């Protein structure tokens, strides 16, 4: 049972890094990929239908951690206190930028450019509002990715209950954030069209097929949490609740995967127009 619980934890964590990593990475590069208000809205539309379904993998990972390894969860989170606070703050800022971007000014589905006349309450096109939201998305994505790097540096260093410090930690954080960005770039190549696509394609290179870059970074992203998990005392800290939770999780997890696969299939087409966000 303990082994199964660890395997489930690894599965959920790896899925988060691969799936959410792609939308976080794309968010980090949004100002490069999308130069105008409308282009940035297209960049966001490339992951808009997925980001909610992506981030729940982390919520579930944290739920598994508190349910199956409660003691470790407490030690890890309280030990990494400043890192987790930064991670959550980045996550909140980024999500609010995403959710609120399209809610002020401009016309729906128009990227704000086509119909920029004043709203019924004379609010104008909301260009400034969207710039603030874009900044929140990009800044939040960077903070989130760097915090992950900082957290992973702590887990790799072998002392998971103290925040990592020193040059190695800084380099790890930057390297992880870089991996997030490249992963997002690979995702953008698969999802975008037009100029934003061309900009992503230039960086990825034309030699390989479009999905090669994404497949490589996906494997690396999945490896990150698994490697980090090797250093955690998981077997020793499994709680008695494992016997109740693991069977339930084994039943539910395939259904979750099916629902997610349905979501990815539904919105598989490349993005050519803005979406709700």
């Amino acid at each position, binding site marked *: 049972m303990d082994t199964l619980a660890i395997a489930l934890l690894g599965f959920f964590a790896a899925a988060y890094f691969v799936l959410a990593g792609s939308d976080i990475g794309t968010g980090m590069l949004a100002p490069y990929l999308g130069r105008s208000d409308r282009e940035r809205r297209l960049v966001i539309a490339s992951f808009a239908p997925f980001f909610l379904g992506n*981030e729940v993998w982390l919520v579930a990972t944290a739920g598994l951690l508190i*349910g199956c390894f409660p003691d470790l*969860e407490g030690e890890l989170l309280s030990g990494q*206190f*400043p890192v987790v606070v930064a991670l959550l703050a980045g996550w*909140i800022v980024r999500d609010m930028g995403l959710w609120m971007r399209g809610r002020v000014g401009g016309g*729906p589905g128009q990227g704000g450019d086509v119909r920029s006349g004043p709203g019924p309450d004379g609010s104008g096109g909301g260009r400034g509002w969207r710039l603030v939201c874009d900044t929140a998305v990009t800044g939040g994505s960077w903070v989130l990715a760097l915090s992950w790097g900082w957290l992973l540096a702590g887990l790799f260093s072998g002392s998971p209950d103290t925040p990592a410090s020193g040059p190695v930690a800084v380099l790890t954080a930057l390297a992880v954030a870089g991996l997030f960005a490249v992963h997002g770039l690979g995702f953008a190549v698969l999802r975008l069209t037009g100029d934003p696509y061309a900009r992503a394609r230039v960086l990825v290179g034309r030699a390989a097929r479009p999905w090669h870059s994404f497949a490589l970074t996906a494997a690396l992203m999945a490896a990150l949490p698994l490697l980090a998990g090797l250093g955690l005392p998981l077997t020793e800290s499994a709680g008695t*609740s494992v016997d109740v939770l693991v069977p339930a999780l084994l039943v539910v997890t395939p259904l979750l995967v099916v629902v997610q696969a349905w979501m990815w299939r*539904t919105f598989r087409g490349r993005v050519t127009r803005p979406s*709700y966000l």
Partner: protein
Amino acid sequence: MNPETLDLARLQFALTAGGHFLFVALTLGLATVVACLQTAATASGKPLYARMVRFWGQLYVINYAVGIVTGLVMEFQFGLSWSGLTHHAGDVFGSSLALETVIAFFVESTFLGLWIFGWHRFNKWVHLALIWGVTLTAYASAYWILVANGFLNNPVGHREENGRLVLDNTVEVFTNPSALLAFGHVMGGALLTAGFFMAGVSAYHLFKRSAEWEFFGKSLRIGVFLSLPALFVTATFGGLQFVGMQPMKEAVFSAKAAEIAKLQADMVERFGPGDYVPSEALTRTAGILMLLAFALMMYLCIAGAVLAAFRKVVFRFRLWHVVLMAAVPLPYLAMISGWVFREAGRQPWVVYGLLKTEDAVSQVSPGSMRISLIVFTSLFALLAALNFWLIVRHARRGPVETDLGLDEREASNPADALPAARY
């Protein structure tokens, strides 16, 4: 345990949990209303209902987004600030949180994404099933959270092993009366919040003599007629909770000094020296405020149900419109004071009779805790303000310019940006 860290951690938990709770109240209630409206729209094919789904759905989604991000902090806060709780009681308490995230919230979020972004991609019945999936998993979510909270208030189904609590009887934990009664109470409260919200927003438009009189007349009626039964459900489950209430909470609420002294003496004998009386001012004020808000809402609901039966009154009684607008905060007041009553009234315990709050707080320096308090409360305050502003803005705008459910395929033509009254 550093007393300053404890106070800061408690303040952070109170502000973040309280904030999250208020967003969730409207989310849970509005989801139900939107799902019912969409059922009517799908079955009848009437454009009016389809437009109502999009208008109220838009307000629901704005509010939901803030609810999610505040919920993220909640989930991580147990490990961050209360590692003593996860250490001591995590086996029991953590399992319902785990089930909440995997069984309920995971599905809820994925379905919500499909519902928002898949508006014109699915068959209308599939799209309807999605919003019902969102609504039902939202209730499941609330249930699991209240199982966790119910355990803290009334710990059952556990045994002690090596100084830690472990699961003994899962069924007992999942059917804890403290959880089930609170679930009924909160569910009713959420519907009540949504009812008052709908009635208030609709009253604003009718007061302004909006051209959308049919739309808002119907919405006002739905709000008013939903509020009355929701209030009785809330009150019934609330009343039932007084029966098995922690004796100290009841004594403090009723201001029985002799009883308080006796219970304090009993507790000292059982658990050793200490102060076992919760803050009397906080507990009593919160309890009284909740009951006052209830009484006020009861009069409004009963009068409202009578008034809403008359067509002319719905459209023309402007004083009533003003009252309905002013009454929107009442369910929020009742919700938050009820929550303070429940949670402050069980102090000094985090797990009643088993673990004191002061023994649950993480070994974190006051400085770190203060920074986290400042970060999260300023973010939450900003979110609450933005949420309020966006909701008021979209509510005032009316159903004319709703982005939710816009047919993206035709959006390049500005004429089609007007509400597509169809599915």
